[in-house]
């Protein structure tokens, strides 16, 4: 079926008057003055109504302004000229005169000025322009200036002032002339500009204030900008913003010599962001004019980004000291992301610096360089098989500068991440010895003491933190937990009075607005042990109320009860809590639960997983409602630490719907699915983990990288050897390979490649003969693998594709390849 043709639009002339009126109003509202003029002209043709005449006049004026705003002053003036004949009205003649002046029609402008003098309103800006033109010597204006206007009357005093300044009269004489110009004169901007120019001679800093009130529309505004540039702290920089005419005047005012002017011209030609080569060339070419030492330093700084300038630098300033040469090479290598080269040169810098160990600056610089090396090593070293380079460099740095608190804490954190508890605790202890009054160090000490179940020690540190920082809520929580832990011990030991005392102390430390019900629940449990049944339910109900929701109350009750060897179900029916599986949890409840579970986990409470079993269903329902990435991250991290694999996998799967490719969620999902066991990994999941690792490295998501590497290295190192993707899980390589070793292997391979065949064969055999004995592999397998690794990919592929029967696998008693024992 054909579409009906649209009804033809009526021509303007055919439209009824009512529609025309509406159209005219609509066009005005949208600033479409051009079409509105046609509409109102038509309306007036039909009926000469006064209101439409008024509208047409306004429309003409607005259209003229619109044209002027586009720089079409001539067209604007023509339109304005039609205004009186069309509408019988004269509106804003000052605009018309200004447009004439803008187009150089001075005689016509002056005639209009005289003719419309009575209708001129707010003509200050116009008169300032006329005054400037008069001073500039425009004859058309001078000849027609009316006798009795301020423009004419004050012209001679303005000219006298200009002459006095320009002819170099004494400051007092010029000031006297300037004072003759009244403050409300059309020549006032000249008065201010000349005053500021005079001030540049004696007090440059005070000059800009004098031109502050010169408007951007004033003819003297450019002069005001020159004054500001000359008075600037760095005139060279300020002059970049001036045009060439302004700059010539500024240079004259500043009294620069020809060489300086040449330098300034070159400098302004460089623009705002010259490249390094141009900049280097600019400095070296103008060395004679610049401060030698500062120029040398600027060139030295440029060498890091423009190494090709080194020969010129050496020619001009002499050879680079060894330390500088290595430092520049290291910085260049860093920029080229060549970390190995950067580390090599930084190491050389340390070598140079320690030659003069007694120099305190050199010692501190050596420490700083080593810390920089640790930062660099962090990017490529995620293996903790041996002590990492990161730790090695950080420790060395303390030999030269033992006063950097952050290094101790960094080392502690690194060892904690690497699950090396012994080193972790030791580094915190060292930090405490070095910085006994530092709250951050003391809080780290609290954490290590808590992890070791040294609650008394933890409480001691927390008390000290509270002395130093009374609003530290973490320290307060630690103290409360410490009293609670003592209370539990006393309850189990049957020392109820002492337990009550500990609970009182915990209660006193709790802030009224932050009561979580934990003390009340413990009071209830203590009452149960004391067989004071009427108090049991009073305290337990109060504890659950303070917990905020039945689910949170149950979590507290279940964990606290198991802490003193009671079954939480004992109280379930009397408390009227109902079936935990039917609880509901809001987002806030879920986030509070993650905080509490994390705190319990830090305390080493081991009943968390089983308590979470009871709450699995309500927690899954609450997790399903989460949408924010940071919430999902907190929840996943909590179940990862708890650990609760099913909830972790569930939460991570939900998170991946929101952030499909985020490596950390991929890791959490796979880790949960494999229940934390790398052996339970499926081939596809291994591939996904490898991809996630690459992504995480690319995105510098260190947490994700650390977690994934820890997981897949759980049973010794798997190395990234080529293996068929998606196929059955290939055999993990039989040897651990920390990055250092991998580097050595690469170096050996490169060396072998460069050798003639005969020598290569001999060298290879020597290397293979020197392999240490391996319990897990027969020597021939070990040699075959090493040979494949050293000779490159083909051999290795061949090796990996061999039938598994060809490889005598170690017996179960001897451990699996890459096994835990290794």
């Amino acid at each position, binding site marked *: 079926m054909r579409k009906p043709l649209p009804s033809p639009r009526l021509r303007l002339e055919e439209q009824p008057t009512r529609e025309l009126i509406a159209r005219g109003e609509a066009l005005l509202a949208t600033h479409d003055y051009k079409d509105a003029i046609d509409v109102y002209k038509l309306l007036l043709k039909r009926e000469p109504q006064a209101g439409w005449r008024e509208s047409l006049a306004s429309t003409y004026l607005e259209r003229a302004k619109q044209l002027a705003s586009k720089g079409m002053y001539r067209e604007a003036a023509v339109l304005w000229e039609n205004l009186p004949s069309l509408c019988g009205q004269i509106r804003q003649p000052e605009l018309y005169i200004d447009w004439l002046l*803008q187009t*150089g029609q001075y005689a016509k402008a002056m005639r209009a000025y005289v003719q419309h003098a009575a209708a001129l309103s707010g003509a200050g800006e116009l008169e300032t322009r006329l005054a*400037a*033109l008069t001073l*500039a*010597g425009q004859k058309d204006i001078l000849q027609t200036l009316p006798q009795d206007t301020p423009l004419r009357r004050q012209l001679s005093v303005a000219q006298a002032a*200009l*002459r006095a*300044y*320009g*002819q170099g009269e004494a400051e007092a004489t010029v000031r006297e002339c300037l004072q003759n110009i009244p403050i409300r004169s059309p020549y006032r901007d000249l008065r201010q500009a000349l005053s500021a120019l005079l001030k*540049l*001679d004696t007090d440059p800093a005070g000059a800009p204030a004098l031109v502050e009130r010169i408007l951007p529309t004033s*003819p003297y505004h*450019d*002069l005001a900008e020159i004054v500001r540039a*000359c008075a600037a702290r*760095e*005139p*060279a*920089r300020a002059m970049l913003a001036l045009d060439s*005419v302004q700059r010539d*005047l500024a240079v*004259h*005012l*500043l*009294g*620069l*010599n020809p060489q*300086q002017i040449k*330098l*300034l011209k070159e*400098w302004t030609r460089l623009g705002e962001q010259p490249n*390094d080569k141009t*900049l280097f060339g*600019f*400095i070296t070419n*103008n060395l004679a*004019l*610049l*401060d030698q030492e*500062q*120029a040398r*330093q*600027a060139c030295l*700084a*440029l060498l*890091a*980004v423009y190494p090709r300038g080194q020969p010129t630098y050496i020619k001009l300033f002499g050879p680079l000291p060894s330390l500088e040469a290595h*430092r520049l090479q290291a*910085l260049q290598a*860093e*920029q080229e992301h060549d970390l190995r080269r950067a580390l090599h040169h930084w190491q050389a*810098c340390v070598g140079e610096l320690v030659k003069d160990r007694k120099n305190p*600056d050199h010692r*501190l*610089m050596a420490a*700083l*360089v080593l810390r*920089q090396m640790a930062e660099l090593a962090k990017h490529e070293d995620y293996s903790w098989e041996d002590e990492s380079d990161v730790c090695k460099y950080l420790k060395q740095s303390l030999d030269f500068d033992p006063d950097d608190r952050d290094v101790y804490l960094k080392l502690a954190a690194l060892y904690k991440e690497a699950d090396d508890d012994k080193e972790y605790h030791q580094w915190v202890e060292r930090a405490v010895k070095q910085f006994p009054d530092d709250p951050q160090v003391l809080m780290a000490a609290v954490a290590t003491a808590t992890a070791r179940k040294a609650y008394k020690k933890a409480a001691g540190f927390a008390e000290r933190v509270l002395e130093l920082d009374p609003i530290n809520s973490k320290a307060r929580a630690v103290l409360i937990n410490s009293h609670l832990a003592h209370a539990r011990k006393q309850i189990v030991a049957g020392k109820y009075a002492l337990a009550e005392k500990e609970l009182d102390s915990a209660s006193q430390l709790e802030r009224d607005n932050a009561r979580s019900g934990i003390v009340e629940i413990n009071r209830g449990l203590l009452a149960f042990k004391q067989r004071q049944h009427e108090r049991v339910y009073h305290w337990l109900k109060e504890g659950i109320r303070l917990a905020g929701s039945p689910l949170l109350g149950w979590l507290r009750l279940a964990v606290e009860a198991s802490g003193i060897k009671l079954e939480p179900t004992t109280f379930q029916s009397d408390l009227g809590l109902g079936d935990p599986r039917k609880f509901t949890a809001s987002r806030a409840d879920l986030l509070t639960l993650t905080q509490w579970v994390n705190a319990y986990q830090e305390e080493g409470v081991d009943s968390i997983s089983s308590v979470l079993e009871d709450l699995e269903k309500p927690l899954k329902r609450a997790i399903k409602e989460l949408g924010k990435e940071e919430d999902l991250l907190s929840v996943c991290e909590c179940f990862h630490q708890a650990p609760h694999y099913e909830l972790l996998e569930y939460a991570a799967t939900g998170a991946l719907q929101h952030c499909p490719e985020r490596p950390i969620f991929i890791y959490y999902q796979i880790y949960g699915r494999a229940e934390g066991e790398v052996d339970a990994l499926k081939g596809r999941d291994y591939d996904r983990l490898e991809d996630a690792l690459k992504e995480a490295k690319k995105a510098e998501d260190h947490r994700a990288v650390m977690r994934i590497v820890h997981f897949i290295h759980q049973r010794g190192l798997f190395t990234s050897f080529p293996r068929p993707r998606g196929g059955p899980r290939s055999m993990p390589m039989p040897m651990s390979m920390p990055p250092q070793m991998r580097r050595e292997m690469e170096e050996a391979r490169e060396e072998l490649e460069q050798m003639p065949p005969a020598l290569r064969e001999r060298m290879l055999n020597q290397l293979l003969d020197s392999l240490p004995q391996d319990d897990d592999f027969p020597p021939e397998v070990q040699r075959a693998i090493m040979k494949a690794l050293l000779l490159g990919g083909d051999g290795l592929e061949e090796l990996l594709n061999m039938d598994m029967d060809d490889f005598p696998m170690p017996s179960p008693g001897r451990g699996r390849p890459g096994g835990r024992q290794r």
Partner: protein
Amino acid sequence: MQNPFTVLDVVETADDDAIKKAYLQQVREYPPERDPERFQVIRTAYETIKTRRDRLRYRLFQHKTPNPAGLVAAALQPGPPRRLTEQQLRQWLNHRLTSQK
């Protein structure tokens, strides 16, 4: 980045006290409410060389393209001040008023 020592107008061997004094002096001259851009430059310069450790760190690892504006500014030390002539002013005014046509 501008040389922080030049920004604060201190010698490279200046100690913590001298640098703090120079910084406060600069802030008094360019308070943030009056010249926020300049204040930011001063603040960054101070943070870069505040302590001995900072200064050595700057000396070792500074590898951004230096901004030699200060170097050029120092070379452009004004000579004896000169006035514009009457003719220069009239010419400029004429140029200014007619160049907008």
